[in-house]
């Protein structure tokens, strides 16, 4: 469908053009949202066409198909030289690991822009930054050169810093700078890991495939362990993993709703994607040596995140901590080194992206209409906002892993493969399933059902606006769709995961 068309670059460029247009609107800043919606929708439509093309015609040998020869096969492959003297090239391509996250990015970006439709404060900067963020995340999920990967990885920080710092809540200054510095330090560990891999590979190339290939013979075991630890730290902070998660609740609580959606929906996935795309294929021996560390951190994140949720008074903070718990499943899936587990980990990223977007949007709706997110002050809202409470209920059920909705498939498979690998140690993560159900249902009961609250003035509370219910409705439909047909996504993840695992000694 896209023979000879640099379709991925076009999709990355569209939001960038939109951002530049939005920034330069001058006095006509009321059109910023239309510009942003226009360009992000264009990117979304094109990316959906890319998905169709990806599924329909993976014709090997065609232009734009890149054979990995033992490594990943990519479609829509583009390669241009950038900094020749250091062997840095701009390479992009999509495969089973990235395609779902790629389209998730364009989808959530468009939806968040729609959801922020009534932003009145400095709209041209707001929507411009949202588009810059989309550019950065799209770049991370498509680029196949370590240097360019790092560039996109860091670009993401700046718009998010401003989104939190300008449009955030009361404690935004602290949260913005903490987010920026915390994640930047992690990135720098990654940077050193990338430098080390580049030089040790000795291929004078930052191309991922060149380094994967060279790493097979060049990377000694101790080198792999050290570099994997650095890269794992770099990605793990983004994930986030306990005990490096403390930036996340602050950032989420203060960020504007759309910022939270992108933060949880996309930025956390960058960490999960980095581990499976960069750390594990390049440094399989390092990963094997640190398998138990990965698993222990994953289980700690799952349990800690869930337990802390029980104690939260703020609805949004609860959702933020639940992200830590759910992203722990991604890491746990990877740590099993089994076909099912790793694939389920990848799928969990996609699932969590959809579900958590709904949850943060519902927090935003509650905040917007009731003026507070403190669970104790809410109550009986289902009488005032029936549509909102229905959507919130479905969202919570999806997040706690109700069969038939998307998270169930992912988390169930992670737990099943965990049983394969570590048998009865399964009891640790399985506790969290019960805790998760408990905090979600308890919060739901206190905020949505029961007698109408008297602690806040509910006379002006009305149901969701169109620009709130349309995005949430759309996401819920997808949650149900992929809950019933997870195989649609899995069939593309599986072969890519097989390639990762083939690099491991045990297979």
């Amino acid at each position, binding site marked *: 469908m896209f023979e000879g068309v640099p379709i991925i670059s076009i999709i990355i460029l569209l939001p960038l053009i939109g951002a530049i247009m939005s920034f330069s609107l001058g006095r006509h800043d009321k059109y910023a949202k239309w510009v942003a919606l226009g360009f992000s929708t264009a990117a979304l439509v094109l990316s959906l066409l890319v998905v169709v093309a990806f599924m329909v015609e993976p014709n090997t040998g065609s232009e734009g198909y890149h054979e990995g020869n033992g490594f990943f096969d990519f479609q829509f492959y583009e390669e241009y030289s950038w900094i020749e003297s250091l062997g840095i090239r701009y390479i992009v391509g999509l495969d089973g690991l990235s395609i779902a996250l790629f389209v998730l990015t364009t989808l959530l970006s468009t939806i968040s822009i729609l959801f922020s439709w009534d932003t009145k404060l400095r709209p041209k900067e707001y929507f411009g930054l949202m588009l810059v963020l989309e550019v950065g995340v799209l770049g991370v999920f498509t680029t196949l050169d370590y240097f360019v990967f790092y560039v996109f990885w860091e*670009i993401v920080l700046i718009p998010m810093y401003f989104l939190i710092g300008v449009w955030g809540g009361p404690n935004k200054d602290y949260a913005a700078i903490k987010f920026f510095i915390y994640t930047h330090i992690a990135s720098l560990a990654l940077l050193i890991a990338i430098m*080390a891999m580049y030089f040790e590979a000795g291929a004078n190339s930052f191309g991922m495939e060149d380094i994967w290939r060279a790493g097979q013979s060049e990377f000694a075991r101790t080198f792999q362990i050290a570099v994997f630890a650095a890269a794992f730290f770099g990605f793990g902070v983004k994930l986030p993993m306990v005990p490096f998660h403390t930036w996340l609740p602050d950032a989420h609580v203060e960020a504007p709703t759309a910022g939270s959606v992108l933060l949880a929906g996309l930025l956390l996935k960058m960490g999960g994607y980095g581990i499976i795309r960069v750390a594990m294929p390049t440094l399989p021996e390092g990963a094997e040596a640190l398998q138990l560390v990965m698993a222990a951190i994953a289980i700690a994140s799952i349990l800690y995140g869930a337990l802390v949720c029980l104690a939260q008074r703020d609805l949004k903070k609860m959702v933020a901590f639940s992200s830590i718990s759910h992203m722990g499943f991604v890491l746990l899936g990877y740590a099993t080194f089994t076909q099912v587990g790793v694939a389920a980990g990848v799928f969990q990223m996609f699932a969590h992206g959809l579900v958590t977007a709904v949850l943060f949007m519902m927090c935003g709706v509650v905040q917007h209409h009731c003026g507070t997110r403190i669970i104790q002050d809410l109550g009986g809202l289902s009488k005032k906002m029936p549509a909102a409470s229905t959507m919130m209920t479905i969202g919570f059920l999806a997040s706690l892993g109700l069969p038939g909705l998307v998270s169930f498939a992912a988390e169930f498979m992670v737990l099943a493969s965990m049983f394969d690998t570590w048998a009865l140690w399964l009891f640790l993560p399985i506790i969290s399933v019960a805790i998760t159900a408990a905090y979600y249902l308890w919060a739901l009961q206190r905020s949505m059902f029961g007698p109408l609250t008297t602690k806040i003035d509910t006379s002006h509370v009305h149901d969701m606006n169109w620009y709130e219910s349309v995005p949430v409705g759309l996401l819920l439909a997808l949650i149900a769709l992929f809950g019933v047909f997870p195989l649609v996504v899995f069939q593309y993840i599986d072969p890519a995961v097989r390639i990762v695992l083939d690099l491991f000694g045990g297979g």
Partner: protein
Amino acid sequence: MAVWNYLDGFFPQLLLIAFALVMPAIDYVVKDKRVLAWASLVPLLVLAALFTEWLFIGGWEPPASDIALLEVSMFSGLFVLVFVFVGIVVVLGSPEFIKADKNQGEYYALILLAITGMTVVAEAADLIALFVGLEIAGISSFALSGFRKTEKRSAEAATKYFIVGGFSSALTLFAISLIYGVAGTTQIVGIEPVLAGYVSGTEPIDAGPVLVLATVLLMAGFGFKIAMVPFHMWAPDVYEGAPTPISGLLAAASKKMGFAAFFKVFLIGLILTKTDWDIAVGALAIITMTVGNLIAVSQTNMKRLLAYSSIAQAGYVLIALPVATQYAVAGGMFHILTHAFMKSGAFMVVAAMGAVAVGEKLDDFKGLNRRSPFLALSMTLFLLSLAGIPPLAGFASKFVLFSSSVYASFEPGQGWLIWLAIAGVLNSALSLYYYARVIKYMYMEKGTGDSVKIPPMMAVAVGFAVLMVVGIGLFPDPFVSACRDAAEAFSGLAPGWR
């Protein structure tokens, strides 16, 4: 013609000096003092064009020197280009800043003379020439710092700078005389062969403590120039007191001259005794970047903040010395190049704010976005680049610089070099804290005051620096190549250098 054959190696210096000398005369004749700025741009633009063609395009080549004092190579050429570019930015930013001052002719003449001295240092092949260049640049900059002689802070800055500078010159000269006493030569490339006994008819010389003393004195002497901790105390006071464009000249160009001297003398002249000084310089690099960044955090005056930030940046460049590979020299030069643009640009933003009476305190940056979106955006780009955020120039150069120490640490026995890279990246993260705070002031805090109009020449100066910071960040390839050529030329100067 015989005289010209002798002098043509001095072509850039002669051009600059000629214009410097006519500057007071022009000042006497013209009413509109901006003519002075245009006139002093002429030699700078000519040199910028010629050296850009030489280093990046090919074609023109500078005349080679017949005398042994100067060594014209791509290494010196890149430094000259940096000095000239900074000169252009500084001159463009000056007319509005000093429009109410007297003696403007001397001001521009001194800028040109300072740049002349820096080019002599960059091209020096002989320790004496090096010292003369340091002095030409130094004395011109002392006078420039005290240009507003009726202003207390300016006079204080000049006095401090003069005393410290004079002291460091004395140390340098003493060290040079010690080296001459040991090696019997002042030729920089001649020192190592004599010490190693490569010259026929000589034995290897074990200079022992004399050479160590000379090394330490040179470290102090050059350390003053680059504001290396613990010889950095003067820098914040001088940068704060001097006219802001001159602070830019000092931070972005004068400091680089110190590095040119450092590279030449340590990596060529004293390379034989590298094991004597490499750990010391490495430790000083880490201390310099850490101290600079830590003190910068608590600054409330923007010029002082930038002063400490450039102390920290000097610490990064120092990494290149103990690593001592061609790649490291290339990285160091690349960072010198990018830092020249980010730092001179940042000082020009402060100068512009001073010129339109906004102020130079950190608090004056509050709400700058509403008063001048152009200045706020430019400053944001400079600061993010200084912090090393991609895809800006500072990231590209830090990447090459830090990666050179990672690479060198793979060599057996050189494992400790990795700590230089780790210290570098940790410091980059630390520096982000105070840079981000300035950005926060500009965009997220409410300020008072109306929007301001930036004088066009200052806007051009800032705009040029922005263009370079973004341009080098997006298309670093020609610059990396130029730095690699320069490093290759540098290693070609000394036989036996890897």
